[in-house]
């Protein structure tokens, strides 16, 4: 029996031991970089002066998918996938090829897993990137010649470089069968719900490693282990709309994520059932309570958008684009004094939720500094990169890039309230504000995403007795300008996390806002299914 158990352990559990390939990858990166720096030349064009190699290795040992209590046949990727990327600038620090809009992408592709394959890929990508850089350099030079003001800044002031190596965390041993049973059980929660047509759960464990190398001496290696949970439901509301709701959460793999996922799915079902029973709504102007997810979306659309990418780019037609507007607002009061806002690059997780903004070195090899963005409502510090947008600016380690060259951006943005209130207290404050405006009810908003389906559902809270009622069919007419940030009147004591598409993590509690405008939509209901659900 013992022997059998040992066998089961070997066959079913998935430990990941795969560190030795790293040295080979690093060697390939160094060798190709040295060759490129020394030999890559194109007559009549400036030499390459700044080269970055990045690789990302992702190992997804298996994916578990279930629907209505039954498993899908699962896909298995038994080996890691390696993705390589190259960024190259030609010219020199005074004048280089970066800064032209839309054409200087971080060239990347999947590669075979060996020294030879990675070198080959880096060779191809470096060649491609150098030809692009030569083209962009010429365009940028033409632009500068046209501009009367000419050049006032240097293009690049490299920050201090260092070598950072961290053994990536191992994905904890995962029992695939147990995860399958878990996914089945989670998806079965939707099986007998009224008018729920589809209830899908997907669990995807992942171990990842990142390597960074530049020709200035910056070298970084680190990784993470996470479990991504995705779940979605297709259902019909009593007012006749067919809706699909979807959620995705990335858990730190070492956290106690399973009970938290189950709780999140239970809350999702409650939310879904509220949507099913929601009534249609009328136009509204007044105070609103943004729950943490909605508050994070509000920060993204008003604050983050203006706190990144300060250096204007030269557009393809030769004009300049605008950079984030907060670069000119340091010292001004831009947010309500109710909250402070920090940028904390070294936070890996918040309450077990993985933070995609975690940055040990930025994408220019510089160690990031923690920033106090907002103190008592005033803008104190802003993120900077090695590309100064005005004289005297130096990098504070916030040059990050997803696909383009690194630009100023945030990492983990954390909102800290001065006077955190419980949910109950927040709702009381909301009702007080509504009564003061003689409103019969006001609104609690759960979602402000661009997706109209999601943000359709809101809750009315009545001033008479505080009872709540779900409603649907409202759109937000309020403009998402930074002005909205000054309307924050109170904040909650529990935060949640939003990982944005730009890999910025926003950690924020619920926020009480002075005013928002909501208007009904004109969406028409759908006919019921022709054949009843089996």
């Amino acid at each position: 029996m013992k022997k059998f158990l040992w066998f089961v352990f070997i066959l079913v559990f998935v430990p990941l031991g795969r560190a030795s390939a790293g040295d080979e990858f690093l060697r390939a990166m160094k060798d190709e970089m040295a060759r490129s720096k020394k030999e890559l030349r194109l007559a009549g064009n400036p030499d390459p002066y700044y080269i970055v190699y990045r690789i990302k290795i992702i190992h997804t040992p298996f994916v578990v998918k279930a629907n209505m209590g039954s498993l899908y046949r699962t896909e298995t990727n038994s080996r890691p996938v390696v993705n390589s990327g190259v960024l190259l600038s030609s010219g020199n620090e005074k004048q280089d090829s970066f800064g032209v809009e839309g054409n200087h992408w971080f060239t990347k592709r999947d590669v075979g897993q060996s020294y030879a394959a990675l070198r080959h890929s880096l060779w191809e990508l470096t060649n491609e990137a150098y030809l692009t850089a030569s083209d962009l350099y010429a365009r940028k030079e033409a632009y500068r010649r046209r501009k009367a003001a000419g050049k006032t800044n240097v293009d690049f002031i490299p920050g201090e470089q260092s070598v950072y190596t961290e053994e990536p965390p191992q994905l904890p041993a995962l029992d695939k069968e147990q995860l399958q049973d878990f996914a089945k059980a989670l998806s079965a929660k939707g099986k007998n719900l009224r008018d729920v047509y589809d209830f899908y759960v997907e669990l995807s464990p992942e171990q990842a490693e990142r390597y960074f190398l530049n020709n200035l001496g910056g070298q970084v290696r680190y990784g993470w282990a996470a479990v991504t949970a995705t779940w979605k439901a297709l259902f019909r509301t009593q007012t006749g709309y067919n809706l699909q709701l979807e959620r995705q959460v990335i858990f730190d793999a070492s956290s106690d994520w399973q009970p938290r996922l189950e709780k999140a799915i239970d809350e999702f079902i409650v939310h879904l059932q509220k949507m099913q029973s929601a009534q249609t709504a009328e136009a509204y102007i007044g105070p609103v309570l943004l729950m943490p997810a909605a508050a994070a979306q509000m920060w993204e659309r008003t604050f983050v958008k203006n706190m990144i990418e300060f250096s204007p780019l030269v557009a393809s037609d030769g004009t300049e684009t605008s950079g984030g507007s907060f670069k000119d607002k340091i010292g001004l009061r831009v947010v309500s004094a109710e909250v402070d806002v920090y940028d904390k690059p070294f936070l890996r997780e918040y309450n077990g939720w993985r933070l995609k903004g975690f940055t040990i070195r930025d994408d220019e090899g510089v160690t990031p500094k923690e920033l106090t963005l907002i103190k008592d409502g005033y803008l104190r510090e802003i993120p900077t990169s090695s590309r100064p947008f005005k004289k005297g600016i130096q990098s504070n380690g916030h040059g990050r890039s997803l696909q383009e060259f690194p630009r100023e951006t945030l990492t983990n943005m954390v909102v800290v309230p001065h006077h955190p209130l419980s949910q109950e207290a927040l709702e009381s404050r909301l009702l007080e504000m509504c009564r003061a405006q003689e409103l019969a009810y006001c609104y609690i908003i759960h979602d402000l995403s661009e997706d109209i389906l999601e943000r359709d559902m809101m809750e009315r809270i009545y001033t008479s007795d505080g009872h709540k009622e779900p409603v649907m069919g409202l759109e937000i007419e309020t403009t998402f300008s930074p002005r909205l940030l000054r309307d924050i009147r109170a904040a909650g004591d529990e935060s949640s996390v939003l990982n944005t598409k730009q890999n910025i993590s926003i950690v924020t509690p619920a926020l009480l806002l002075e005013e928002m405008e909501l208007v009904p939509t004109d969406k028409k209901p759908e006919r019921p299914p022709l054949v009843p659900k089996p």
Partner: protein
Amino acid sequence: MKKFLFFFLLLFPFTVQAQQNCSVEKQKPIQLLTAELKRGFKVLKKQNPPIYYLSYTLQDEISQGVWVTQGGIEKIWDQAHFALTVFPRVGNSQLDNTRTLKKGQTFYGLIKKDVPGVEGDGKAFTNAVWLLTQQAVEWAQEDYSAVQADAHISSERLDDSPDFMFPPKETFCREQNFSQFDLERITQLLLKASKRVNGKSFVLSSSFKFSNDYGYRYFVDSVGTRLKTPSQLVRLTYSIEGQTEDGTELSRGKSYDVLTEEELPSEEDFLAAVDRSILELEQQIKAPDADPITVPAILQNKAMGVFVHEVLGHRAEGHRQKEDSFGRTFTDKVGQPIVSSLLTIVDDPTLPYFNGEPLRGFYEYDSEGVKAAPALLVENGVLKNFLMSSSPIHRFAKSNGHGRAEPGRRPVSRMGNTRVIASKTVSYEDLEKQLLEQIKEQGKPYGIIIEDLSGGFTITETFAPQSFKLEPTFMYRLYPDGRKEVVRGADIVGTPLVSFKEVLAAADDYAVFNGSCGAESGWVPVSAIAPSVLLRALELEKTQKTAQKLPILPPPSSEVNP
């Protein structure tokens, strides 16, 4: 004629090998699909507009493989697919939602989605079937409204045949032991092969791949057809690429289609083939650029297979005779000679092997549940028939089992195994001698021998020239003195009615080209079997070159010890 019959009989023993060996009624996916189809169809046929036909195709497949690029494993996969395609027909068989719009774009996509397994009570599976049916019916009803409107506002159709002929009811069930392959051994072989490019600075990239796709297809429809059929496609392939200074992109490669591990090439043979391809690539890079010219030519057997597929095969597809947007090159030519009288052409999907080589175009039932059958397209040069799906055309009302589609697409008539049979053959050596005679007789500076084609395309619609273009990957000039010279950078072009007429001779070296064919109904595996032929004239034109400069530095693999 005798010779044709001989070949036909030679094929026949293979066609009867597929025997039922299971009971289709006992298959759980069939049971669940049938129950849901019956439950739904009872209601759906009473709708306005009615659903008058409904089919479910369930793909239960495993896909395994390994992909090695530039000396490293890029991907190893082992994936299961359990996907359902729902195909409702709305309206009636005379006019339904599948009719091609005269004004506007016709969409050939169907609802296809992964579904939960049938294990346990099967309720999740049944629920998914119900949900996808609902979505598919909504799409189909919308399409039908568009078809009705189009019928009112558009000019009359040249062929007003019905949109659908109900296929006969069929039941069939076959299970098979799918061949398994030693992936570890094959991976090591591919890694070893990928190292052969080391030290060759002209090889800019290389890729080596093995794939094994196998599983069952379950088919259920409202006529009562119930099918379970197996399929397995196994391929070992590689490609080695380079480029000339002037931007001509070149590649050499080879594919091995097999069904068992024993049929794979030995390590020695495989590595020798790779070495040969590297050598040929180098020859091509050093070769002169071809000139636009019309000269006598030999299309070697595999190249001839592709030629027939593109130039004639697509134009013999039934639906291309029906829709007004097509050129209908052969529609009114049944009974007339359309190619050299030397040639007979038959499409026979029931053929699993030819000369010991597996054929990718083999299948037992088509995507509409119709039993596969040989279709004699051309007999001694005379057009006899078309490839037919369940969409009737003028004078051809019934399907001959060629309604094919990639899962998730609507079937149209497609090729399977297209076979060219020559009534008179010579040895290949004699064919080259005849080419030399033609060069001299026509006073041409040289002739062309096309050894290999990567593929090509043909335009069958009226909005553009109804021509074809084929891309040779390896060809020679043959000079009057018998000297051969590799050339590169030319495509074959032409129009269908002219190109086939002047086949002067054929060799006895029949060979198989296994490939995949893309058209409205997606990608389907196909084969072409043909002999080498001598053409009185073949037109070559310059191929497209890339603007991409050669890499500034040589590839790292060209270093002595990469």
